[in-house]
């Protein structure tokens, strides 16, 4: 067992699960989407991205790019959230909530791709 692989898999799966947890629920209901969960998702996603740095293989490159996509989407979601809370002055209206959640939903898709690749890599590793 390789500790590096454990940590790597842990963060990738955690990023996907946290993201999923935040996205699930009515898309326009702020009560279904906890801001702490969004915060945790962003942090874990950033860590997962850095973990993927420096891998020169083809699969490593795709891993990194999916993570960068997820980061981009999540940062966009937090910016929309900050806008709703502090700048617009309206709070989380159903409309803005839907925006935040749908952006996070896009990140979820990228994270799922990451997990699928992790699984594929693991399977092919065992076959060798």
């Amino acid at each position: 067992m390789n500790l590096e692989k454990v940590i790597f898999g842990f963060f990738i799966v955690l990023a996907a699960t946290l993201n999923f947890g935040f996205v699930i629920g009515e898309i326009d209901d702020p009560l279904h989407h906890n801001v702490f969960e969004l915060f945790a998702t962003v942090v874990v996603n950033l860590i997962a991205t850095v973990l993927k740095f420096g891998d020169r293989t083809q699969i490593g490159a795709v891993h990194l790019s999916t993570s960068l996509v997820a980061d981009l989407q999540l940062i966009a979601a937090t910016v929309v959230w900050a806008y709703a809370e502090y700048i617009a002055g309206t709070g989380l209206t159903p409309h803005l909530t839907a925006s935040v959640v749908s952006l996070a939903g896009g990140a979820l898709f990228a994270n799922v791709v990451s997990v699928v690749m992790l699984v594929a890599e693991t399977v092919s590793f065992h076959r060798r």
Partner: protein
Amino acid sequence: MTNPLLAFWQQLFDTEEDARGRPRIRMQVDSAHPERATSTIFLVLRRMRAPLIALIVIYAIAVLGLVLIPGQDAEGRPWRMGFFHAFYFMSYTATTIGFGEIPHAFTDAQRLWVTFAIYLTVIGWAWAIGTLLALSQDRGFRQALAIGRFVRRVRALPEPFVLIAGYGQTGRRLARSLDALGRRIVVVDIAQEPIDELALESFRADVPGLVADARSPQTLLLAGLAHERCEAAIALTNDDEANLAVAMTGALLRPELLLIARTVSRPVAERMRAFGATEVINPFDLFGDYVRVALRAPASFRLIEWLTGVPGSTLPRRREPPRGRWIVCGFGRFGREITADLRAEGLEVTVIEPAATAADDPGIINGHGTEPAVLAQAKLETAVGLVAATANDVTNLSLIAAARAINPGLFLIGRQNDAANVPLFRAIGVDFALIPSRVIAQEVLARITSPLLFRFLAMVPAQGEARSAALVARLAERCGEEVPALWRVRLAADTAPALARWLAEGRRLALGDLLRDPNDRASPVAAVPLLVVRGDASSAFAPVDDTPLAAGDEILLAGVPAARRALDAVCHSDPTRDYVLLGRDAPSGSIWRWIERAPG
């Protein structure tokens, strides 16, 4: 990026082979490069992984703590910081900008947490920046950067270039000459200092240099061996093994490339030639050949020396090496070569060598040449020439001084090992100095820059003394006592359009007519034709004036620079050509030309 499918297709079905029937491997060689260029950024990213993760975690903890710890607003009501404000606060605090406590003054609990968070973030930043700085000092990282820059510079070279492996005395001399001739160079050396010196040299063009072991094919590929604009690879390192490796790599990867390797060992030369087209230069062997030519054919030697000299300089009249008994001091590689060459000329040779040699040679005297007793044994007073052939310059100089004291009439040949000792050898005044680096550089230059001259020089010894002497006399008569410049003229549409049109009309062109002065056609220009080459096969040595010329011929000329300009005018301008060839002033404007043509 290349399409992988296409590459696969090409590998499967591309059976293209070069002239010698070896399959081409250019494509695979090239694909090794792009990965290198991006390796630096991956190296940075990989090293920064741990500090970056630490920073993210530290920020997350600090922000989360600020959000969770209850605070108060200005009126003392309970208030909680949001993620937005917490992140904003941590951002300016961690980067030591410090805007103060906003939006409300903190409670003591918050201040306790912030104190902790500040130290934590400082540690995180210190680690990250420290790692980055350490990376920029790291030898591996700097090497990766240097290689990346070198590869980009080599790839961006717009002109054909010569790859030089080994930047010692010879490499430096050659690089300077090639640069002066406007050729581009790429240099590889195993040591750092020679490559650093590249920046201090006043080269006209940018010379990319790489510190790497030329024995590795990877190094040579980085230096552009597989590059389509690489026109020659020259192995000049001090290590025969490395030169052999370069010759081998070049011959296997780029069989059509001009490869030149230096060695002083005959077995190594054989191994180099086994790989094919490599041209091997052995300075001792070459010098021995010079001496033989000088002994046997002084006029031919004079001719060769004159044509390979620096243009514009004057050559002093040399003494001709006398025939008689010679003494060779030092029986190393050079000593052996020169002894064999002298004996092959039928001369008696006495060898002085301190080390007990295995060679069972009656002519060998065991001892140090600088000892009076040994010199007396060699009977210096009855000898005609002495070769100071040891690998030590001080020994050679003292040998020459001692020998001259005993017999002032001796013909002296000195081997000069270190370029720094040039003034000493010049001051002591030897008749002949062997400077290996100069011999090699001259030979390489002749092969690279002027294949025609090289061909000419190879023909000289076979022509006989009389023809060589006549050519020398003719050169001296037409061009003066200075070393002439050499150039070639090709009778093709791009290099000599006026002459090409003349020949296309089916008119006769004789060499002598071409070499008339455009100002006064009664007198010839100050140039002498050395060689006329037609196609690949036939060539005429020192052609006479009524040699007929045909389209596609190449002429090697020696002369003063003004003659070259005159000939250029004849090659390019129709009126000048008509004056020189026909002796009449042809009209140069199109109307006058039309008027002249109309009645005829």
